[in-house]
């Protein structure tokens, strides 16, 4: 292919606040009876007014800080005017020209930096369902989701392929979970993904003259498929000398393809203007510092610390820091492990290999159980050392193999020592002893 994909991303993250963005209704609507989490405000009844949820605003700022963005000194909400039956007020309260957060970056494992354009707050809409009631086709609206707080995070078109996009998304998901501001549960629609994709000639610096947006994708797998589909679809169009249409498309799971939804000619004019029902905001240095202090250790920092403090490999550290609960579990377990004479590396192996049910088994219990299960007859130290000496001397080839990188050879040597001693030994202990000797 002679083209280079140019991909940007918009992600909507639903916040996990108790109440909605502008009213006191519960924001925990998933699976609830339709229209039970509603009030005059989120139903858009005549006269109702929005009162902003401070928790949601703080959380948006925390996301912004975690993504390295700058928090605006002054900001405001705006009205985005458009008609849709699930939009109770006929406008969505969003942010236009003064988002809370702008200009950050996220670093991928290949070292590439993805620039964050902005992160802003807005409210979710209701949900339309097309159903049959008494044999009639009807459209039903559930306003339980109406007014639930969303943070929209927009990147610059810095991605070159779907792999980078997915890595970024996983990082973003991990970050908001670490912050404890969203469950980021894809199944529940907590994260909605909108990649915009276009192609340019290899080596070309300017952005292409068009872009195709794929709306409302709810899984990392589909975003990958949609991007790859678009890349080949657009390449075919460019190959015959044409320009792909600037449009909005949707991902169709059944067809395994993107389908056109709206072209540029039909684009909305949202008639943005400052939301007069909510006074503008100013964020002081002190406020931002307070939030920064509140921000917990983020995934990237934790990963580095695990590698350094616990002498873990990149691989182990990545697995253990993937979510906050297993990272915390590991750290707890290292205390119990230390008392039982286990190194953090050994504790990490236990957790990674045994995959304990961390919600139900306490870290100390895990270690206790492990020690009990691996209770071995005490082996005379000199006898063991002697056995190791003999095995190493008799198996020069295996020793050479191991030193040249063949991990399997170690297991062979381990087996040989076990056989010689003829008693049950703690395999992990023996393994590290052998590794020590072969250094």
């Amino acid at each position, binding site marked *: 292919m002679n083209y280079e994909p140019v991909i940007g991303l918009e992600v909507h993250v639903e916040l996990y606040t108790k109440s909605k963005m502008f009213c006191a209704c519960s924001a925990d609507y998933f699976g609830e009876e339709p229209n039970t989490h509603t009030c005059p405000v989120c139903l858009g009844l005549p006269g109702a007014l929005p009162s902003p949820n401070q928790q949601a605003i703080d959380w948006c700022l925390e996301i912004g800080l975690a993504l390295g963005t700058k928090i605006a000194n002054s900001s405001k909400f705006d009205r985005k005017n458009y008609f849709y039956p699930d939009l109770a007020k006929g406008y969505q309260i969003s942010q236009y020209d003064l988002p809370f957060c702008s200009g950050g970056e996220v670093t991928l494992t290949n070292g590439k930096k993805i620039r964050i354009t902005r992160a802003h707050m807005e409210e979710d809409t209701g949900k339309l369902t097309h159903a049959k009631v008494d044999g009639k086709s009807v459209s039903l609206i559930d306003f339980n989701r109406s007014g639930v707080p969303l943070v929209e995070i927009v990147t610059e078109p810095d991605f070159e392929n779907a792999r980078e996009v997915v890595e970024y998304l996983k990082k973003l998901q991990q970050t908001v979970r670490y912050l404890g501001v969203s469950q980021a549960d894809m199944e529940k629609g907590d994260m909605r993904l909108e990649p915009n994709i276009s192609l340019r000639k290899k080596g070309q610096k300017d952005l292409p003259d068009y872009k195709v947006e794929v709306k409302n994708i709810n899984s990392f797998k589909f975003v990958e498929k949609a991007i790859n589909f678009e890349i080949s679809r657009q390449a075919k169009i460019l190959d015959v000398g044409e320009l792909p249409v600037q449009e909005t498309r949707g991902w169709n799971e059944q067809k395994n393809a993107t389908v056109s939804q709206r072209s540029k000619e039909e684009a909305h004019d949202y008639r943005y203007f400052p939301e*007069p029902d909510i*006074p503008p905001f100013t964020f002081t240095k002190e406020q931002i510092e307070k939030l920064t202090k509140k921000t917990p250790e983020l995934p990237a920092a934790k990963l580095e610390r695990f590698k350094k403090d616990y002498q873990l490999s990149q691989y182990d550290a990545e697995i253990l820091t993937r979510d906050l609960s297993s990272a915390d579990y590991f750290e707890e377990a290292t205390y119990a492990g230390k008392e039982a004479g286990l190194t953090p590396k050994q504790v990490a192996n236990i957790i990674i290999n045994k995959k304990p049910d961390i919600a139900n088994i306490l870290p100390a219990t895990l270690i206790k159980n492990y020690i009990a299960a691996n209770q071995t007859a005490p082996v005379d130290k000199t006898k063991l050392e002697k056995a190791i000496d003999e095995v190493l001397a008799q198996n020069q080839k295996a020793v050479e193999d191991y030193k040249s990188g063949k991990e399997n050879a170690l297991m062979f040597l381990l087996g040989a020592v076990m056989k010689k001693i003829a008693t049950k030994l703690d395999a992990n202990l023996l393994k590290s002893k052998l590794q020590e000797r072969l250094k």
Partner: protein
Amino acid sequence: MLDISDLTIEKAQKLIASKQIKALELTDAYFKRAVKLNPIINSFITITGDAARDQAKKIDDLIANKQPISPLAGIPIGIKDIFSTKGIKTTAASKVLEDYIPPYDATVVTKLKDANAVILGKTNLDAWAHGASGENSDFGAAKNPYDLERVPGGSSSGSASATAANQVLAATSTDTGGSTRQPASFCNVVGLKPTYGRVSRYGTVAMASSLDTMGHITKTIYDNALMLNTTAGYDPMDATSSTKKSEDYTKDIEKVPKGLKLGLPKEYIDGLDDKIKNVITSAAKKLEKLGVKIVEVSLPYTKYGVATYYIIQPAEVSSNLARYDGIRYGNKRDAFGPEAKRRIILGTFTLSAGYYDAYYLKAMKVRRLIRDDFINAFKEVDALICPVSPTLPFKLGEKASDPLSMYLADIYTVNINLAGVPALTVPAGFVDDPSTSSGQVLPVGMQIIGPDFSEKLLYQIGYAYEQETKWYETKPKL
């Protein structure tokens, strides 16, 4: 039967508290008058007899049980039919909402109910509060009690006409561009447009959110201050309401601050109709006699007010009316009247891509300059006095076919909304008009405008003037 013709809230409250009359008697007397006069004046869209009587009985029980009662307890009031009232139809005088019954009360209504006021009905208005004559109501225009061939002003047409005709002792109103002050002026009653943020907007059908204020209309200044004592204050449901503490507005109302200096803005006097000018200048002289110093001041951006207002207001209207899609409640959009449609189209246009900067954004900048005009004037004087309307109450139908001349009637009121400052309409006299068929003279009001949150001062000035003039004693011949 109880004679209610001379009652004010202040008087009625004393009669109730001293058990000379029962709240139920008072409610019944006002209910009868409201029902009797409504076919003539059309002040009400809904009259709520049974609910009002139940409320009055409750207050009589409180008094019988020696419970403390508030100054508004048992007082029959009207609620402009744009304030949501739980269980009572709230139409905004539009066919779109002709059957809409809100499940909740506006904050002002909650406060008045908590003060045990008796809601006698929902008063008429220009649909969606769009208008200055009351003629835009989808349920027929209200009439001016001083001349039934004339308009009572608008948009709070029914609140002004009902108070003037003594169908209620007070009524709530809104003021986005003059909707409280102009009808108060046309009907010889007192109307307050409070500081933006002083009274919660929650639950009142929004017209133009950045300009809307929740006022009220009464016969006297003291009554007006009593109402504000109840309605003012911070409301967590309205993010634009002020956290500044409200005051006891009746306390020291009879005292005029020493060395008071008032300004007569020349832009509001130059070119003014002679008859109205005479009323304002003689009012100024009256105040001078009371020891107040009067000086001329200038508000140079005044002339841009109407143009600025008719950009910002329709823009916000177009967005605020978008929810009336007939899906969740109300009728379909074809039920909107011509004036609402006109404003929706105007506002949609000025907010459109490519026009926003030239219209809305520019207007917001001019708005800032207009506010600065007032701030600067208040460095020189304590308050301003000026006319409310460039014309006398006009005849029904006279301007109905000319929306632009109707817009220009807002010339002395809109700047105050753009600036956000408070203003009080006080009855200032009567003028005869040869075209008045009934031979009645027509009322003229004046405005007292003060800095942010100066309502107390406005009442003190108004009270001093009212004590000298007592124009409220000149009742309509009905």
